[in-house]
C-alpha cells in the first residue's frame, strides 16, 4: 500500500516555504536563509536539502540529471534520480547539456552550463566560518558585520607557515562582494566555474537547515591575498581511458601501490569515449 503523495512528494505548504526562501536567497546572493527542512525518505546528510530544492522547482516538462562526485551511476545519485522521476514524471538524462535541472553532490560538470539551467548543489556544512567560529549565533553576527577577519587570519597563518593555503574542497568564496559563502565541497578545480556564470546555482543544506544561492552573472571570488592568488589543484596524471588531463581526474588505487586516473565527470567521459562532441568547457 503506497500512499498517494502531492506532486513532487512535498506538500504545498512545504513547497511554498522553500520557494519563498529561495527567492530570498537569490535576492541576497551568498546569504544563508534558514528554512524548516522536512525529513525526506533519504537519510540526513545524503542530500535532503538539495532534494527539497529540486522537488520544489521541478515540473513534468523538466529534464533532470543527478550526479555524485561527478558520476551519474553512483548509488546515491541513482536513488535520488529514481525518486524524483517517480514523484514528478520529469525526464532524466546523463547529458549535462540536455538537463534543465542538475542536482549534484560535490562537483560542477565540466561542460559549461547555459542560461536557464539550474544547478542544485548538496551542502553538508553551509557555514564557511564553522571551523574558526564554532558558535552558530556568533557566526551569524560576523556575517551581519561582514567581518571575515577570522578566515583571513587563518589564510595568513597558512601562508606564513606553509607558503600556501591548505584549504581544498569547499574553498570559501566572496559572493557579490558581500557575503562569504561555502560553495559546498567542490574541488578548487570547480570554483572558477561559478564566477559570472550564465546559470543559476542553488545550494541546500537539509540537516543544517539553510538555503543559499548564486544568481546568474554574479561575482564569485575565492578568498586570497592579491599577491598570493588562488590556484586550482594540479592534475597529476592522464585519464586511463582517454588520455585527457585538462579536466578533473579521479585517482584509483592499484594493487601494487600505484595509482591510475580517470575523468571524474562521467557524462563528459562517456561523450569522449563515444566520439560525441561535448559542449564548450569553462575557460582556463
Amino acid at each position, binding site marked *: 500500500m503506497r500512499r498517494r503523495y502531492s506532486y513532487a512528494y512535498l506538500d504545498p505548504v512545504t513547497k511554498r516555504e522553500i520557494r519563498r526562501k529561495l527567492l530570498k536567497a537569490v535576492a541576497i546572493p551568498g546569504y544563508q536563509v534558514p528554512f524548516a527542512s522536512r525529513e525526506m525518505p533519504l537519510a540526513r546528510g545524503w542530500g535532503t536539502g538539495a532534494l527539497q530544492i529540486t522537488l520544489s522547482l521541478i515540473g513534468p516538462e523538466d529534464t533532470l540529471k543527478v550526479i555524485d562526485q561527478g558520476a551519474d551511476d553512483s548509488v546515491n545519485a541513482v536513488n535520488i534520480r529514481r525518486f524524483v522521476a517517480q514523484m514528478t514524471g520529469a525526464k532524466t538524462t546523463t547529458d549535462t547539456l540536455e538537463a534543465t535541472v542538475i542536482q549534484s553532490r560535490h562537483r560542477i560538470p565540466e561542460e559549461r552550463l547555459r542560461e536557464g539551467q539550474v544547478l542544485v548543489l548538496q551542502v553538508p556544512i553551509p557555514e564557511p566560518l564553522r571551523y574558526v567560529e564554532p558558535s552558530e549565533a556568533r557566526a551569524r553576527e560576523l556575517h551581519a558585520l561582514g567581518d571575515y577577519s577570522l578566515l583571513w*587570519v587563518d589564510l*595568513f597563518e597558512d601562508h*606564513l607557515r606553509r607558503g600556501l593555503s591548505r584549504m581544498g574542497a569547499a574553498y570559501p568564496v566572496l559572493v557579490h562582494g558581500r557575503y562569504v559563502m561555502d560553495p559546498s565541497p567542490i574541488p578548487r578545480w570547480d570554483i572558477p566555474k561559478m564566477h559570472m556564470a550564465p546559470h543559476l546555482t542553488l545550494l541546500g543544506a537539509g540537516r543544517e537547515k539553510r538555503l543559499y544561492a548564486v544568481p546568474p552573472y554574479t561575482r564569485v571570488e575565492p578568498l586570497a591575498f592579491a*599577491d598570493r592568488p588562488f590556484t586550482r589543484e594540479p592534475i597529476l596524471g592522464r585519464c586511463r581511458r582517454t588520455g585527457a588531463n585538462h579536466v578533473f581526474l579521479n585517482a584509483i588505487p592499484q594493487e601494487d601501490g600505484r595509482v591510475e586516473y580517470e575523468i571524474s565527470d562521467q557524462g563528459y567521459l562517456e561523450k569522449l569515449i563515444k566520439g560525441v562532441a561535448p559542449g564548450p568547457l569553462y575557460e582556463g
Partner: protein
Amino acid sequence: MLEERPILQVRGIRKRFGDRHALKGVSLELYPQEVLGIVGGSGSGKTTLLRILHLEEEAEGEYFLNVPGLEGRNLLALDRYQVPEVRRWLAMVYQDPSRGLRMDFASLTSVVEPLILKGERLYEALVAQGLEALELADFPLERAGSPPKELSQGQRQRVQIAKALAKKPLVILLDEPTTGLDLLVQATFLDTLRTLKRRLGLSMILVSHDLSVIRMVADRIVVLYEGEVVEEGLADQVLEDPQHPFTQELVGAKL
C-alpha cells in the same frame, strides 16, 4: 596643552552590576600625545572604566572621541553594529595576553589582524607592516613566527603593543600591562612605552594599581577610589603633593 581640544572625553560615567555601583559618575579627558594614568585599588572601577572606553561594556553617561565622522556623537548610545567602526580608532592591551592575542597562531599573525580587518589584502605588505610594528615594540624578530603560548609574559605583552601600533589608533588603552612581569622586565617594558610615546607621539590611557608603573610613563594622573575620581592633575604634582587621603596612602606606601 589645556587649550587643545581633548581627543577623548567622558562625562558622568555610571555603571552598576546588580546592586553594586562600580562607577558613580566619572569624568575625564585625554589630550593629544599625552599618557593619562588611572590609578586605583581593587574595587576602584578602573578596569571597568577601561572596558567601557573600549566599548566592551554598556554604561550611562557620555563618551566622545574627536575623530572625523564621530564628533559630538555619544559613543555609549551606539548600537552593536556601529561599535566595530569606533574600535578602529582604539587599541587595547589586555592584562591577560590571551584575551588580545591568538595564542596558537604565529605572533606576527595576531599583529597583522587589525590590518586585515582594515582591508589590507597584500600578503607582503602585511608581513612588512607586522614586522615593523614588532620591531618598534622591541620584540625579537626571529620569534615572529612563534605562537604567543611559547613566549614569555613580557614578550607576549610586546606582541600586544605591536598589534596596537600596527593599527595606528587614536588612543591606546592599557590594562595593567605589567602584571606578572618581574621588575627588570617591567622596567624595560615601560621604557619601551616611554620611547614609543616620545617617538610616535602616542596618546595612551594606562590603568594600574601600581603607582611606580604609572609614574614611569604618565603625564597626568587620575586617582579612582570606589568608583569616583578623587584626585587628578599633572603626574608630578599628584605624586609630590597628594591631597586625598587615599592618594596619600598610595604615595606613602611607595616611599
